[in-house]
């Protein structure tokens, strides 16, 4: 008797309907699955008749781990989910805790602006990874290398702001935490924006006939289907649905910033490409405006909420000041202790709605944490969208819904 593996039965009984039919395993180490994901594809000749994503290879139990850490320790886990956009994850996590504590209004403007700018920079970095790997899947090598070159500059900005390129652990509950951005950061970001250009990638891909023939009319997701699968982010806006949390429920400093939401109605891979490309142009606009607002702020504008029970005292004072010392010890030992209750907060991450849900029992550790990760939800569309296309179209489709397996499996 042959050994039955668990995943083989996911397929049910494979009925032989034609001679050309066969089952194809794509992954878990296929380069175009962007990580360790396995796609079980049933093909009839070259045409996909059924597609089942098999996820979980990268499961690390992040949600459970967050429940075993205090609220501060959880920050280090969040940027390991969507590692292409660490600061966005940090931000969603912290804003959910702030909502749980009912202190959204107390976040000072400076912290909001820095959060917005950093989130948009991470959107740029994430979209650079996406545009590079997506183009690489389709066969364009230069776009990948140029993307990573530009992304490196963004990561260097993160490093200047907080010390790490990918696993940023940036910001704390109540503001930016003890590390406000350095004084020279605003100029560095401006210098980056001045030298930054998307036109190279644009001229390489957008008008390219080969790229278009690989992406136009491929993997079409109609708007109703996108909505019923719960797609969010660029994958939804590529189907013509104008929904973006930054406009629909403005958070951080997005309500004071002028930007547009690109929407394309075609629903194919090319439309999603255009959405993301235009989003990158918008992201540079947003960052530039944030920098202008930051420069207008007075030099001594606070970057942390005025809450001694949450925000540690100035570290320089600690050895000399008894109250500060006590406060510091109390905060490190007990951390943030939100009141009993529950809260959900979603931000518009680079890949879609990135939501965190917390249940608090009043202690220093979350009683329950759940992450609504956009990659995981968006991946569900593979089952429908891949059917009827060719195997090569499946590759283009995976690229276009922009998944990160660290976030899918958590």
């Amino acid at each position, binding site marked *: 008797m042959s050994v039955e593996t668990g995943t083989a039965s996911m397929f049910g009984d494979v009925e032989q309907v034609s001679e050309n039919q066969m089952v194809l395993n794509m992954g878990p180490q296929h380069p175009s699955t962007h990580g360790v994901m396995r796609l079980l594809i049933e093909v009839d000749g070259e045409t996909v008749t059924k597609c089942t994503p098999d996820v979980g290879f990268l499961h690390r139990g992040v949600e459970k781990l967050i429940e075993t*850490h*205090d609220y*501060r*320790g*959880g*920050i*280090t*886990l969040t940027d390991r989910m969507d590692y292409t956009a660490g600061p966005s994850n940090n931000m969603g996590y912290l804003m959910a805790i702030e909502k749980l504590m009912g202190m959204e209004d107390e976040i000072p403007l400076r912290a909001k602006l820095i959060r917005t700018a950093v989130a948009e920079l991470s959107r740029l970095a994430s979209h650079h990874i996406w545009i590079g790997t997506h183009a690489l899947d389709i066969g364009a090598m*230069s776009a990948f290398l*140029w993307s990573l*070159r530009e992304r*490196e500059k963004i990561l*260097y900005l993160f*490093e*200047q*702001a*907080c*010390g*790490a390129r990918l*696993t940023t*652990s940036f910001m704390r509950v109540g503001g930016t*935490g*003890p*590390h*406000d*951005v*350095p*004084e*020279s*950061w605003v100029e560095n970001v401006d210098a980056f924006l001045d030298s930054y250009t998307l036109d*190279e990638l644009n*001229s*390489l*891909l*957008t*008008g*390219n*006939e*080969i790229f*278009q023939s690989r992406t136009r009319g491929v993997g079409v997701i109609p708007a109703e289907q996108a909505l019923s699968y719960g797609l969010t982010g660029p994958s939804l806006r590529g189907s013509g649905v104008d929904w973006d949390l930054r406009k629909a429920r403005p958070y951080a400093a997005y309500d004071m910033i002028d930007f547009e939401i690109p929407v394309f109605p075609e629903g194919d891979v090319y439309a999603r490409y255009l959405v993301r490309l235009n989003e990158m142009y918008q992201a540079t606009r947003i960052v530039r405006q944030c920098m202008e607002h930051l420069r207008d702020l007075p030099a001594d504008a606070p970057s942390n909420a005025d809450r001694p029970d949450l925000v*540690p005292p100035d*570290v*320089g004072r*600690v*050895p*000399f000041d008894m109250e500060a*010392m006590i406060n*510091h*010890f109390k905060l*490190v*030992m007990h951390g943030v202790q939100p009141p009993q209750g529950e809260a959900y907060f979603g931000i518009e991450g680079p890949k879609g709605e990135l939501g965190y849900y917390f249940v608090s029992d009043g202690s220093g550790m979350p009683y329950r944490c759940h992450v609504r990760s956009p990659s995981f939800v968006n991946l569900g569309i593979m089952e429908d969208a891949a059917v009827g296309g060719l195997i090569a179209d499946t590759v283009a489709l995976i690229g276009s819904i922009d998944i990160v397996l660290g976030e899918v499996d958590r």
Partner: protein
Amino acid sequence: MPLGSGILKGFATVFKVGARKPATVMYPENVRDIAYRFRGQVGMRRDEVANGLTCVGCGLCETACPNDVIRVDTSEGEDGTRVVDRYLFDVGRCVFCYFCIEACPVDALQRTHDFHLVTEDRRGLVIDGFKMIDIYEHDLENRSLEDQNIGPGTRPRLWFGDD
């Protein structure tokens, strides 16, 4: 637009960009710029008076660390003060979040730019406080001093007036 003009446009860009200097840094020979705030291996400051660990054994770093990297063993000294017997740091578990440095009330733990963490043996990843002092002092020598003060939160904090 005639067919193929999009590809030709791409080619033109490729030639234009190809003429530029490459952005690659040939790593072992050259190292890219490292920002001052770069979070490398955690170092420790030498106590100038006792010529030993600055750590007073309060255990805050142990509590703040999300990954149980640090272990501080203390005992009561002759005059009733707390004495640090052993300070252990497991580099293999550290995620370089620097929560420990934020927590340390006496600035014993310090930022370094050291990212050469390779060892031949897993046991070599567990280092003690004196090794951390070496790492910190070696790192200070190789770092220019003026970039130590570039903004709030990163100024060198010296206490007990030894500046």
